[in-house]
């Protein structure tokens, strides 16, 4: 059985066969793919798989070819492609019922909800991340956690952390590592570290790939569902990962989030966290800090920066952040 690359853009008949095979397997053909492979038996496409960045997706084997272990062949071909393009990790989003097939191929389960399982392979892996957390762990009776993107770090973030410090003896601030924001990962991390340098009971950590990882939306197996339903599923997975893989390592007992009156997705995220944590971890939703009766948010700060309204920026962010923002914009 030879694995060959499918050039969907150049070969309409291959594309049609690919779409048919996916639909037969209950998957939605999704244009968000970088690389697609397939296996043919005579002229029939009997197995396929794709990657998008380092996510393995849209893997399907025809019913008539189920006993030839083509999944292994497809997965190996995709893994070799990923390693040859420089990736050392791969992720699979799949239905929980098929997760065992991927586990048999050397993937490790990271989190599972009722509808989705997330698996990974490669290094650094979740175990390595947990080891990193363990090394930064502080002895605590009541540890709290705040997860933030800090794009940029504002007085609102500082207020959230300081409020958490009132009821917790240690607060872990997890800064989103995914590099998809106005300010890059290193800059955001520096803003948080400097903005909280005076708080000795705060530990600042990155989230790596394991929390609010803003990679592609793994919606392909969730067909016929509205976007918000997809978002809810992803939020549930994220909350599950936090609850089962991160909170226990750091002995976190309480997570603090800011109320988000303007974003339905964030509201949904808070909702799903509350449902997932249900009694096992306390979720505290704090009202946003207001300055001049307007809520402080990173979005308003970015708007002020764009408008060149520095007095407004200064009113919303700590001096450390202002300095970093000025140096970033000065460099440009």
């Amino acid at each position, binding site marked *: 059985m030879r694995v060959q690359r499918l050039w969907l853009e150049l070969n309409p008949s291959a594309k049609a066969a690919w779409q048919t095979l996916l639909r037969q397997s209950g998957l939605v053909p999704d244009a968000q793919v970088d690389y697609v492979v397939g296996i043919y038996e005579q002229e029939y496409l009997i197995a396929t798989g794709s990657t998008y960045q380092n996510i393995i997706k849209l893997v399907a084997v025809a019913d008539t070819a189920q006993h030839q272990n083509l999944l*292994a062949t497809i997965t190996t071909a995709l893994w070799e492609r990923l390693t040859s393009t420089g990736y050392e990790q791969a992720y699979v989003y799949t239905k929980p019922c098929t997760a065992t097939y991927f586990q048999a*191929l050397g993937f490790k389960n990271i989190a599972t909800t009722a509808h989705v399982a997330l698996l990974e392979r490669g290094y650094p892996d979740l175990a390595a991340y947990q080891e990193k957390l363990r090394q930064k762990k502080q002895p605590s009776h009541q540890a709290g956690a705040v997860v933030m993107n800090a794009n940029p770090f504002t007085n609102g973030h500082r207020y959230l952390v300081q409020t958490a410090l009132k009821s917790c003896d240690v607060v872990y601030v997890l800064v989103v590592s995914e590099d998809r924001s106005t300010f890059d990962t290193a800059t955001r991390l520096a803003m948080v570290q400097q903005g909280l340098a005076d708080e000795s009971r705060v530990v600042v950590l990155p989230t790596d790939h394991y929390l609010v990882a803003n990679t592609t939306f793994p919606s392909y197996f969730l067909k016929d569902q509205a976007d918000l339903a997809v978002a809810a599923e992803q939020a549930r997975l994220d909350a599950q990962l936090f609850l089962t893989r991160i909170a226990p390592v750091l002995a976190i007992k309480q997570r603090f989030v800011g109320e988000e009156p303007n974003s339905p997705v964030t509201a949904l995220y808070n909702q799903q966290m509350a449902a997932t944590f249900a009694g096992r971890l306390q979720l505290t939703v704090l009202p946003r800090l207001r300055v001049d009766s307007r809520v402080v948010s990173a979005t308003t700060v970015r708007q002020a920066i764009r408008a060149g309204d520095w007095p407004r920026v200064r009113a919303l962010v700590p001096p450390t952040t202002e300095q970093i923002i000025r140096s970033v914009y000065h460099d440009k």
Partner: protein
Amino acid sequence: MTNKQSATAGTTESSDIMITLKPNQQGIQVELESNVKKQFGEHITALITDILQRLAITNVKVEAVDKGALDCTIKARTIAAAYRLRGESDYEWEAINSWND
């Protein structure tokens, strides 16, 4: 050549074994996944550990996904993964062959 963080050799095809080496704090730690773990688990783990010791690799976590590989395959995949981890490709065949004596 620099040391890589992790290295893989082999596939998950039938009769093969996929060996992945990752950093470990201390010692050789083998995590084996195999359909014949009950029958040959200890043997496979001992074989992999032995090969790595012969290659002077001391702190490593091994993830082995076995699909019914024979000893010669297990040996070959382990050696290949170990050389890839060290970024070397000049196999010391004489030394390796002498293990069979």
